[in-house]
């Protein structure tokens, strides 16, 4: 009886020790989360979430493209013969291309920018270098435009006339959409000129590599696809100012009369 009691006590002790050990390890794991280390499983989980969101986005985009095609088909059906309307349709495509609301493709360069790899001597402070120095991205894009880039995107965000790159809190917003490194910049244009401009000695890429330790790579590609601006464009303050410029005068004149007609109609109502 006495011996059996001893075994029970030891059994209870062993369970207790086991529990204490596991609690200890769990709490130290939680501590490590704040300290900067996370198990790879959590990262995998986030990666899976990202994939899901991207798939969802792609299916919505497909739906949008389908709707757009149906709209276009109806448009083409109902306006066919008139030369003026045909000219207007052509102008519209040109304007939409200039506004960055169409998907485009062509030869160019793909640039990737990523934060420095943390080393033992330089472990980093937990902040992203490229996000804090987002003016480097601004400068890089300016250089690309200077080298004749016709269309540019960063991480899927098309650069249009209104695109901002702003550090807001902990993330960099481009077209008001939060983005994070690594940054993939695609540019359509003369790839030799663009690559040469960026790679010039003491140029932007060398500064990014040597002064900030960033990982930058540039690759020329034959066929790059750049997505459209996916935001909703609104102009609340700006209005077209007459007289319109020469080449679109005709189309705009008709547009004006059209508008005037509509205004009359609403007046009558």
């Amino acid at each position, binding site marked *: 009886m006495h011996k059996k009691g001893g075994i029970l006590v030891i059994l209870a002790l062993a369970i207790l020790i086991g529990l204490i050990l596991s609690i200890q390890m769990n709490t130290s794991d939680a501590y490590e989360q704040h300290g900067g280390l*996370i198990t790879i499983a959590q990262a995998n989980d986030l990666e899976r979430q990202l994939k899901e969101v991207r798939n969802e986005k792609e299916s919505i985009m497909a739906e949008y493209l389908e709707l757009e095609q149906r709209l276009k088909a109806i*448009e083409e059906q109902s306006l066919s013969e008139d030369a003026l309307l045909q000219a207007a349709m052509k102008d519209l495509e040109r304007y939409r291309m200039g506004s960055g609301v169409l998907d485009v493709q062509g030869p160019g360069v793909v640039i990737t920018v990523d934060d420095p790899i943390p080393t033992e001597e330089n472990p980093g402070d937990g902040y992203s270098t490229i996000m804090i120095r987002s003016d480097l991205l601004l400068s890089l894009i300016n250089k690309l435009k200077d080298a004749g880039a016709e269309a540019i995107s960063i991480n899927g965000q098309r650069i249009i006339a209104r695109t901002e790159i702003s550090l807001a809190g902990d993330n960099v917003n481009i077209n008001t*959409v939060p983005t*994070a490194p690594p940054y993939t910049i695609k540019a359509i244009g003369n790839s030799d000129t663009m690559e040469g401009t960026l790679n010039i000695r003491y140029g932007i890429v060398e500064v990014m590599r040597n002064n900030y330790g960033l990982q930058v790579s540039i690759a020329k590609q034959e066929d790059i696809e750049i997505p459209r601006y996916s935001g909703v464009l609104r102009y609340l*303050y700006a209005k077209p100012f007459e007289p319109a410029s020469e080449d679109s005068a005709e189309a705009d004149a008709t547009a004006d009369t059209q508008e005037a007609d509509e205004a009359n109609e609403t007046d009558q109502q």
Partner: protein
Amino acid sequence: MKRKAILYFIICLFVGCSIVVLTKTVNGQHLFVSSKVLDDYRITIEGERKDMENIIKLTDESREELETLEALTAAHEDISREVEAKLFQDLHFYSLAGGYVDAIGPGVEVVIDDGTRDLEYGENPNDILVHDLDLLLIINELKDAGAELISVNGQRIVDTSSISCSGYTVRINGQFYARPFVIRAIGDGSRMSAALIGPGGYGTVLKDWGLIFRISILDDIIIPAYVEDRASKYMTLSTADKVKEGEKN
């Protein structure tokens, strides 16, 4: 003696079991990544969500339009007038968005000029000169504060506009300009000026360096159309039915 051996065996078994259980519950892989990777993932997911919301808005707009047209067709009405009206409305809108027409609206006018103060002993003259990055950052802050249209010294800023220092002059849209620089922006004037002259605003930064920076809120700002050649040599409309959305990060 035998009892004791069994006892030790049981204790060892328990300790062993508890270690196994514990490693299982903390996701036993002892491979770690930095928290930055996790943050980057979170931000990217947030970004993709936001992008998706934008596309949903666009989709809703298109669907509404399509439904109106289809309803009219079903009622055997002539829709050519509606379609025509929409075409010219779009033409009007995208000529404004793409910078093909002059525009007017309320906004701000920013004047930046080289500083007039004396240099301190050994100071670099560049400290009080206006550079391309100064202009880029001002324009970027204006856009961030909701500027709809921007011009610099009369050059409309469009999607391909570059600003670069080349010696004594600054090249904007391929044309050469010198100081002073006048930036006009149409949008919410008080918001834009607050962004530039507020604490940490880039206008304040320039003033602190000794440069000249003036901003005024105006009612009628006229921004000219983009007049340079913008025929595209390399870019064509995407022929693929579906462009792959989202970059591979």
